[in-house]
């Protein structure tokens, strides 16, 4: 076989490999995007649930108007947040306000016995969990994406086509680490 023939075969194999790597990187990037959107879906769900919760507990917790106001304010701030960093900060504040509300709810036995409140609390706990799991999934898939484009020789292709490593979701406030504080005894 001529030198040219061998050269041609090598080029074809290389081109094929580049195509495969590029496609797998694109697939991963889409998964990462999807993972990111899932977090937003769950955050939006939490925003939708809060007015319901506040309306239900209002009657029982008349002495805690201040706390309820803070929850509503934090919720509105979070819903109107601009940009990722701002959203992360305001969602964190909302989590804090919510956990204070649930801690106070412990003092109201009739409130705790209310079926509607129980249901709402289960919904909110579940949404909190989903936010956590969505972030966990995003971090896992983004890590996979980052590794895939940083290892040699795939890094050449990633550089060639301008793939950027994605930032991982990290807990910014120390208080955020205490999410289980929301898991009150109302949960089964």
């Amino acid at each position, binding site marked *: 076989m001529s030198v040219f023939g061998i050269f041609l075969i090598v080029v074809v194999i290389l081109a094929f490999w580049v195509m495969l790597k590029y496609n797998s990187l694109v697939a991963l990037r889409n*998964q990462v995007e*999807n*993972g990111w959107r*899932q977090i937003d879906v*769950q955050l939006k769900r939490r925003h939708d649930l809060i007015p319901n919760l506040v309306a239900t507990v209002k009657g029982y917790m008349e002495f805690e108007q201040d706390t309820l106001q803070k929850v509503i304010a934090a919720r509105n701030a979070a819903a109107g947040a601009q940009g990722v960093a701002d959203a992360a900060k305001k969602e964190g504040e909302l989590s804090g306000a919510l956990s204070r509300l649930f801690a106070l709810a412990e003092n109201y036995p009739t409130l705790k016995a209310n079926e509607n409140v129980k*249901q709402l609390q*289960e*919904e909110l706990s*579940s949404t909190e*969990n*989903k936010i956590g*799991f*969505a972030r*966990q*999934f995003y*971090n*896992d*898939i983004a*890590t*996979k994406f*980052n*590794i895939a484009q940083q290892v040699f020789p795939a890094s050449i292709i990633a550089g060639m086509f301008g793939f950027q490593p994605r930032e*991982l979701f*990290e*807990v910014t406030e120390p208080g955020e*680490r205490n999410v289980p504080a929301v898991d009150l005894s109302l*949960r*089964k």
Partner: protein
Amino acid sequence: MAQRVSGNIFEQQQTNRRNTVLVMAVFIGFVGFLGLGFDVLILGLGQRGSFHLPVATLLAVGFGSMSAFWSLQAGAASVLRSSGAVAVAADDPQYRQLRNVVEEMSVAAGLPVPSVYIIPDPDPNAFATGKDPAHASVAVTQGLVDQLSRDELQAVVAHEMSHVRNEDIRLMTVVAALVGAAMLLSQFGMRSMQFGGAGGGRRSDSSRRSGGGGVIFLVFWLLAMILAPIISRILAMAVSRRREYLADASGAELTRNPGALAAALEKIDAATDPTRSIKQGTAHLCIADPLGAAANDREGWLADLFATHPPIKKRIDALRAMAFQARPDPTALKQPSPGS
């Protein structure tokens, strides 16, 4: 860690896809062999001066292919029906928590939300079925919902979601459906044997030369017929043991809470009553053996053949070891490792 486990998952998916095709091919081949036996022994194919189409073989292969196709398409529905599972309505307040937990785990696994089913049985148990992650179902018994805490329920559902993600469910469902089909077939074969024996005897009178071969063939055919249920049973069992450990581990990876699954398995183990709703053919799909077979407590090649599940104590120990490793490390707070 995430990298290593996801590598496992990919391998597991590949193995499962290959094995599903293999199981279906073996089944079609087996049924075709029975058809060939019918052709040779009863219709006299291959005898002097009688060359015709192997009608029974073709029919049998056709039937086998249809069964295999059916097991893939309708296996999940048939498994759910046979265990008396009832679909949980989206807004049923009684099972709100169960549905939420399933939704949480599908978020964690990055998969579509599976259909949720309840099996009205007081013994705690659970299984997942379906032909692919987009058409998956998770079924749990009433006893599981009643006896487990929220975290434990979440851990069990995470184990089932891992079966969905690893694509164990398709292989396990196909095996369950084909085991049922093989059982039916062998019963049918047993009944038609009297007719087959008479035909063979008459023919060996008329042509002595092929008589010896015919008898050998008859013996093989009978063996195959008798072995069918045993082979399919062993197949179903071999399929499930190793994957339970993997599903435990990747389930714990979803919840990041291996201790909860260990606690759940302890509760399931403590409930000694068999799960009566779950039939023998579907035992290998469940999180713990519904029949409580003694073979499950042992290890070794014999136990590998006859147990559907690894020893539950060993699973609990493995999970507890994971929980010990997962204990928060003070240095991890300063520098969160990606992927943990």
